């Protein structure tokens, strides 16, 4: 994410290293200008002229998502307003074997909505109707372009809200959340998008419109919705999403605790969880992250803290009251030298301001940085933080740590100055080594930002060829021609329809040297 203060990137080639013509990185297939022209013609037939973009300058405004070091100008951008329009474009893509990429608000951090130079970018930002708020059913039905926070705003007067709260919730879309299975600070208690999406109207890569799940739970048949959520746009596009609404908690209590070290703060975290308390959120920042936040937003966190915890409890007032005292006690027992308790919404916002600004704030202390996203078992936290510190000191690359301590989701910010020869490469190395640490400790290469194009190459470190092959059986069922967001998630596309003992002519992807037959 380019800002006045720096360039935010994530693990992967640094800015400028990926040119659109770099076919290995972007998964280009053979040129198909006739197909593209046919899809554009069809788009102009079904969409308003203003919703079909072919002008190069305007196309370029869609060249990247929140991971701005990958940039590809799409051949065509369409902004459908209805399910029928969207399905018609996808059907044309299927007919003419043109790849397509869906995009909501374009805030993703793994390049999941990176366009294809030979494909269509299907943008859902003109599908922004909140169709229904059904309080009695604890559901909302919304279009995919609806902004995450707007669902909550629409449900507030009913006493409800939409629980998943990615930090981009003021601009990210529900469709994008569905594709990425977005999390947020409060998923420790409430779960992720996948636990809150109960139904979707869905356009398959063939252009068919199907209903997955619905207002009621437990639809008979395979839980296709469960696999679609988090599939990063590789199985199709949601055109309407039914979500659970959650009752607004009666009480919310937030505290900020200052500790001498991340070890102490980690000890307090383990003690709280070990006591059977499930806070709505437990967030940790280390000294370098605090320094950045102070520089950016003057959050006035405790002086001299080696680490701070932001802990939030919510629920029935009487429960929160009781557990909050216990949380304070555990913080004190583990060496908290200062505890601040928010007594109203303004004070709560003040406590959260430092945490929420942390990613962008790092731009104040470093010209460039990589936002990493990895997960470890929570109990491995002290060991992994020490290992990250060692990596940092041995490489001379500074790392600021901001993370969801309650569920072991780390967001190390790897700092570098791209104007210094070799600094970008050194940062990449440290960033990659942090992912290796996560894998070594039985964790994951991504907790919420997704695999996208950024981490596809890391997938074989976490999964065997057989695991990835099996996942791609689902891909083959939905999208045998690999038209939906190709090149994302999986490092090597699987060829579909190859049954042992039955040989066909070489698949176009094999001919192009882009796929291997399993």
């Amino acid at each position, binding site marked *: 994410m380019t800002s006045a203060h720096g360039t935010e990137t994530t693990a992967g080639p640094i800015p400028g290293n990926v040119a659109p013509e770099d076919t290995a990185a972007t998964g280009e297939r053979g040129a198909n200008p006739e197909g593209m022209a046919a899809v554009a013609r069809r788009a102009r037939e079904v969409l308003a002229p203003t919703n079909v973009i072919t002008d190069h300058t305007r196309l370029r405004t869609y060249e990247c998502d929140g991971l701005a070091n990958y940039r590809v100008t799409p051949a065509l951008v369409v902004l459908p307003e209805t399910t029928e329009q969207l399905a018609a474009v996808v059907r044309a893509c299927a007919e003419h074997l043109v790849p397509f990429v869906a995009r909501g608000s374009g805030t993703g951090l793994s390049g999941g909505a990176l366009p294809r130079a030979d494909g269509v970018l299907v943008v859902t930002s003109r599908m922004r109707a909140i169709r229904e708020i059904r309080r009695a059913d604890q559901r909302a039905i919304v279009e995919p372009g609806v902004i995450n926070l707007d669902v909550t705003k629409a449900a507030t007067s009913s006493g409800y809200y939409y629980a998943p709260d990615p930090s981009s919730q003021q601009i990210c879309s529900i469709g994008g959340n569905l594709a990425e299975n977005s999390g947020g600070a409060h998923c420790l208690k409430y779960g992720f998008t996948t636990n809150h999406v109960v139904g979707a109207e869905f356009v398959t890569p063939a252009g068919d419109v199907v209903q997955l799940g*619905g207002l009621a739970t437990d639809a008979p048949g395979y839980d296709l919705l469960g696999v679609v959520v988090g599939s990063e746009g590789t199985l199709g596009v949601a055109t309407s999403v039914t979500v659970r609404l959650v009752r607004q908690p009666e009480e919310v209590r937030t505290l900020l605790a200052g500790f001498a070290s991340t070890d102490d703060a980690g000890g307090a975290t383990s003690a709280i969880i070990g006591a059977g308390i499930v806070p709505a959120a437990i967030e940790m920042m280390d000294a370098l992250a605090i320094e950045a936040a102070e520089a950016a937003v003057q959050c006035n966190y405790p002086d001299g803290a080696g680490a701070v915890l932001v802990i939030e409890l919510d629920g029935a007032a009487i429960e929160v009251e009781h557990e909050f005292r216990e949380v304070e006690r555990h913080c004190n027992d583990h060496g908290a030298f200062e505890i601040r308790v928010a007594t109203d919404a303004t004070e709560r916002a003040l406590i959260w301001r430092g945490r929420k600004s942390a990613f962008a704030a790092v731009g104040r202390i470093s010209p460039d940085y990589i936002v990493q996203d990895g997960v470890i078992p929570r109990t491995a936290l002290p060991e992994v933080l020490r290992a990250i510190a060692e990596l940092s000191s041995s490489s001379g690359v500074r790392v600021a740590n901001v993370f969801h301590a309650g569920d072991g989701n780390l967001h190390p910010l790897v700092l570098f100055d791209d104007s210094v020869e070799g600094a970008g490469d050194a940062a990449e190395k440290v960033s990659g080594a942090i992912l290796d640490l996560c894998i070594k400790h039985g*964790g994951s290469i991504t907790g919420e930002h997704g695999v996208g194009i950024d981490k596809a190459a890391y997938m074989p470190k976490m*999964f065997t060829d057989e695991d990835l092959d099996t996942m791609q059986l689902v891909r083959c069922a939905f999208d045998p021609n690999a038209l939906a967001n190709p090149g994302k998630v999986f490092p090597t596309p699987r060829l579909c329809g190859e049954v042992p003992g039955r040989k066909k002519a070489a698949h176009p992807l094999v001919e192009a040297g882009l796929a291997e037959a399993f």
Partner: protein
Amino acid sequence: MATGTLEAARSVLESACDDVTEAAPADAVDGVQPALVAWPAATEQVSEVMRAAAAHGMTVVARGSGTKMSWGRPPSRADLVVDLSRMDAVLEHAAGDLIVDTQAGVGLADLQVVVSGAGQRLSVDETVPGASIGGTIATSTSGPGRVAAGTVRDLLIGVTVVRADGVVAKAGGRVVKNVAGYDLGKLVTGSFGTLAVITQAVFRLHPLPAARRVVSVEVADPAQAQRLVQSAIHAQIVPAAVEIDWHAGGSGTLTVLIEGTGPGVDGRTATAVGLLGQGSTVAEELPADWTSYPWAGQERATALKATFAISGLERFLRDADAAATELASGIGLRLKGSAGAGVLYGSVAADADAAAVAALVDRLRRTSTELGGALVVLDAAPEVKAAVDSWGPVNALDLMRQVKAEFDPEHRLAPGRFVGGI
């Protein structure tokens, strides 16, 4: 299978797995008699067994504790039962991380004993006594606790499966927060063994609550049930369960479960009593049949699962009452389930007339569908199964068929047991 083929298959299976036995009548899968039972003790052995079965074109039905072998439709063929009861080890309970890694043959109740030692639980109710972890995943059974904790799909964070071709694959992992790759755990949850054999699972756990109270009240009619359920779910009592037990044509009991810390539970219970009103009672112990399905203990009773938008409760109960009264006396329809989640299970007396049951299924299926849900006949006597469409209409069936075709192109895993003849 022909005797020669069977002998050949058996000798290959015996080299794949320590123990292979001839199937007894008790091994029948919903009336379909298998030839052999393999008893693998590890995922690798399941893999070898599946390869051997593939080489000999054998159809396979996976079995955990065998408590739900008659659920779904009878398979068109079942040559081999793969019994996972020897894979009964809880591999690791990482209490500090609130996760458990277990083999699929472990009993759900046995797993609870292990994790309760650290004050934790897997928030999945044992709805069928003796059920295994693998069978619980494959049928996605759920009980009262789903209102607060969700169902198997929400708690399963990692899974290892063996495909029909013997390939071993895993998805997810050992951490709760993880978006790397497709969530195959959700795909196999509730798939009735038609996609792959589940051999290992990792779940997230929850702390056992320090205190609990059960608040119950008799409800006289569907309108009152609706009103009380709505007030319970919209209130600030954060219920762990909102259950109803309804005898169609009569009346029922509504029960709200409150879990949490001692002082917190006291306060919330007082609020709940106020909401449920006069006549409500408070207990510390759960009712004896709290987690069981309404057909428990009735051999081959018709077992229904109905879902609907939460606000559809009143309409559903009303239609059930009317149908039970009009269709036949003695149909004995009892509905029990999570009113707070829009899920009710139904039992119909085993000796009820098959045509009357079929008419009831049609009628309530129409109601469920109109209320945004579905109605499934989970189990029934053969003559009832012959008279009903067990799964009913299913959305996105073509996509499901394509998924099945990719995972099991020869249709050797529990063929015909699932939706649309899958």
